[in-house]
């Protein structure tokens, strides 16, 4: 394919637009449940892991696993659910900071997990899942 001047201009414009998006704070306000968990602090991206399938046939029963090294508490939020806060878990010193459970989702959405670290500060990870919209019990 030949790259014309017009193509390269388009590319530059797209790149410019993309670079505006990930600025946290004003571009993506904190979900109220996340803000409640962190006291308004914006979590760092990464530093923890969430395992969630990309699609699910059964929106009432979706396995999700969370692992956060050094975490004393975790929050899981499904912003597309009528009741978005899925759970909060606190780990005692003798517990390994991970949890697997099964959740229900009202439709396709990006699920957010946040960890509060023992050393201070917060980290977060998000994962998108495609499920059928239907009668949700959540």
């Amino acid at each position, binding site marked *: 394919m030949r790259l014309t001047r017009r193509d390269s201009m388009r590319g530059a414009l797209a790149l410019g637009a993309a670079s505006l998006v990930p600025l946290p704070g004003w571009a993506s306000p904190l979900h109220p449940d996340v803000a409640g968990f962190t006291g308004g602090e914006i979590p760092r991206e990464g530093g923890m892991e969430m395992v969630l399938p990309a699609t699910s046939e059964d929106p009432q029963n979706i396995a999700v696993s969370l692992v956060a090294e050094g975490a004393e508490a975790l929050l899981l939020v499904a912003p597309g659910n009528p*009741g978005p806060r899925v759970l*909060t878990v606190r780990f005692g010193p003798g517990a390994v900071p991970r949890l697997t459970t099964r959740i229900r989702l009202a439709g396709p959405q990006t699920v957010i997990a946040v960890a509060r670290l023992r050393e201070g500060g917060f980290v977060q990870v998000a994962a998108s899942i495609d499920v059928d919209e239907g009668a949700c019990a*959540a």
Partner: protein
Amino acid sequence: MSRPIRARVRMPSTATRGDEVTIRVMATHPMESGNRRDMADNLVPRDMIHRFTVDFDGERLLDIDIGAGVSSNPFFEFAVVAAHSGAFTFAWHEENGAIHTETARLSVS
């Protein structure tokens, strides 16, 4: 009103000191969030387990504050570090005030 909870705890009964011990628990419960409608389009009354706790010889290991997004018959898998022999207490707290508990012993060598 839901039926009495039946709960199942799956974990090893023995472990070596320092090992991670994986524990799986499931309780029978409808976990009605109060947002769901029945066939006649009436809201099904709220009926939830809102908290699950795990203690080991009186020490709190896990405390889960459960919201509406957790599936019915809630399942949790977690792990603890085996430090010494002792007894776990698992407690499912219902919003109506009822608490269902199970206990299990772990022998650590």
